[in-house]
């Protein structure tokens, strides 16, 4: 009997060995030596690459991690799931790929996590393609200067700090100053103006209730169908918060590379930097300023460099980025804000003081700038918005001077009064993005002095009345103006029409 068993075993072994597909079955294995705080240290796997996916065996199945520290003796990796089931001594293998996520139009209208798993309770997402989470930005020859407008629908931005497709424009300010509101209005405007631009909103460590409210709002506005939301909550592991913007950018690049236009909003990169700091400290990388690692600049520069306007040869698609940064007490000279300011092509600075005074959107005319958007500004808006920024900046300065004395010359008084009206005019309710014709008509009415006699407190009402009357009586002209190609000069028929209507409307709101 014993002999028979041995013979069987020998045969079994020979068969097993003969059946081996050696190259396919021999796998590199390592073992977990330490685990904790979402970070795992692995012995072995000497052929692992940077950012390569590791698969760790656990009682609850395979847990994935990605390698970030390739040391001489061990690998430091960040877990993509919970570390509760991972134990020291667990077997680790290489997946053989770097991180990738599903990309494509199938994601439109969905809320997903940074790995592309649905969070909206909808069916599983099956896409034809997958995109690399970490990908090199397009080179110089593959790019083209920014020249097409990306209308936000916010008059203060489109008039003073225009954004172009492929631009990176930072939205920066303290908490509760309306940063996200501008980003959401921009998304809504893409739907209202039927621009065809795909929206991608990346929530980095945002409260899930806030994300749920956003989804509801976008559905109400009918924009959700052209939107992808990549969501991470405050309770998600730092690794997912770190990955979210890169994964979302991969999703946006699909549209950019397929001759389409996409807008990506990173809300916000301050939390992203904090998540990366947490990971880096746990991986025992040396801390630098404010305990951020040395490569925190590269963290954001390599991300934002992927937003670009492609050359005609590559299809002329674009990916526009609106990163958001939260400041503390308006300090834009802190580490992360200065980094991102230097990376982006301009910034919209939101002031808490203005917000508290009821000036919303609370955009600071002095500190905001758009470095490349001028070339992309709609012709019609450009023709009326020329002196807007200067006028508003001068007004804010004069207004603070005027507080000290009442004896002002006529010119200064006039400038202050015009500035007050301009400030009122630029106030805009949330979720009410304006079209090109609305912006042009409103600014033109103030520029021509038609609203000079309107009480400052009634400028908003006068504006609404003007727009209603223009649309009712001259719909065709306004539709033509909305195309944005018309340069508005005093000689233009439409300019005269707006001025005449504005003067007529103003009579009903005089002081």
């Amino acid at each position, binding site marked *: 009997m014993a002999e028979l*068993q041995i013979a069987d075993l020998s045969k079994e072994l*020979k068969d*097993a060995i003969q059946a081996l597909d*050696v190259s396919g079955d021999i796998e590199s294995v390592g073992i977990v030596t330490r685990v904790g705080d979402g970070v795992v240290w692995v012995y072995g796997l*000497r052929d692992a690459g940077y950012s390569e996916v590791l698969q760790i065996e656990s009682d609850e*199945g395979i847990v994935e991690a990605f390698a970030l520290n390739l040391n001489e003796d061990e690998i430091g990796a960040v877990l993509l799931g919970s570390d509760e089931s991972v134990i020291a001594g667990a077997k680790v293998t290489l997946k053989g790929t770097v991180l990738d996520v599903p990309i494509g139009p199938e994601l439109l209208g969905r809320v997903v996590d940074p790995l592309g798993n649905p969070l909206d309770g909808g069916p599983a997402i099956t896409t034809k393609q997958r995109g690399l989470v970490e990908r090199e930005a397009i080179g110089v020859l593959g790019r083209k200067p920014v020249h097409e407008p990306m209308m936000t629908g916010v008059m203060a931005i489109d008039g003073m700090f225009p954004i172009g497709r492929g631009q990176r424009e930072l939205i920066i300010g303290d908490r509760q100053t309306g940063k996200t509101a501008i980003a959401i209005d921009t998304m809504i405007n893409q739907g209202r103006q039927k621009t065809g631009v795909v929206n991608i909103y990346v929530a980095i460590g945002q409260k899930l209730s806030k994300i749920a409210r956003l989804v509801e709002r976008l559905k109400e506005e009918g924009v959700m169908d052209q939107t992808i939301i990549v969501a991470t909550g405050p309770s998600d592991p730092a690794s997912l918060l770190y990955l979210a913007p890169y994964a979302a950018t991969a999703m946006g690049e699909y549209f950019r590379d397929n001759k389409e236009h996409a807008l990506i909003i990173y809300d916000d990169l301050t939390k992203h930097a904090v998540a990366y700091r947490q990971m880096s400290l746990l991986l025992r990388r040396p801390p630098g300023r404010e305990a951020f690692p040395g490569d925190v600049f590269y963290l954001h520069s390599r991300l934002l460099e992927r937003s670009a306007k492609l050359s005609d040869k590559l299809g002329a698609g674009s990916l526009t980025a609106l990163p958001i940064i939260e400041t503390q007490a308006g300090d834009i000279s802190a580490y992360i804000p200065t980094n991102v300011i230097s990376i982006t092509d301009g910034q919209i600075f939101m002031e808490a003081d203005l917000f508290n005074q009821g000036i919303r959107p609370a955009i600071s005319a002095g500190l905001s700038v758009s470095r490349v958007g001028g070339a992309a500004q709609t012709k019609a808006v450009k023709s009326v918005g020329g002196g807007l920024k200067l006028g508003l900046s001068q007004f804010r300065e004069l207004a603070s001077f005027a507080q000290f004395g009442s004896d002002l010359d006529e010119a200064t008084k006039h400038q202050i009064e015009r500035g007050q009206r301009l400030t009122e005019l630029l106030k805009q309710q949330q979720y009410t993005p304006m079209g090109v014709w609305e912006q042009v008509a409103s600014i033109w009415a103030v520029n021509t002095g038609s609203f000079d006699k309107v009480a400052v407190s009634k400028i908003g009402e006068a504006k609404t009345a003007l727009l209603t009357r223009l649309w009712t009586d001259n719909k065709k002209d306004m539709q033509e103006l909305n195309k944005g190609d018309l340069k508005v000069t005093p000689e233009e028929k439409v300019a005269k029409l707006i001025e005449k209507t504005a003067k007529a409307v103003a009579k009903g709101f005089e002081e």
Partner: protein
Amino acid sequence: MASIRLSRRKIAAYIADELIAGRNATRQLAAYLVETKRTREVILVVRDIESALAERGVLVADVAASRDLTPEAKQTIADFLRQTTGAQDVHMRPHVDSDLLGGVRIDTPGQRLDQTVRHRLNQLTASKI
């Protein structure tokens, strides 16, 4: 004076060279680990030495099967390992693990070849999930 802290890989390379040259450096290694307070790393150091030996053509393999291996089976495995890894010298540490149900699992430094029934069943279960 405190000793310089060396990486495990460097320690392993030195010890492997000593072993191949026929010198026993075990006491020297033990003294170093005690002095540098790295005795907790002893298992990893041994694994690294095995890796270093494998790079030098001396392969140490853990062979697990559900039953005792016959000399013939051992020879087959040794030949297989020589052929696939290019090692001139193969040292096997066979052991029995009835949980494997059948087949054989070979662990060499940093690599594993799992041809056990247990592994196949696990794969089957995972693919069904």
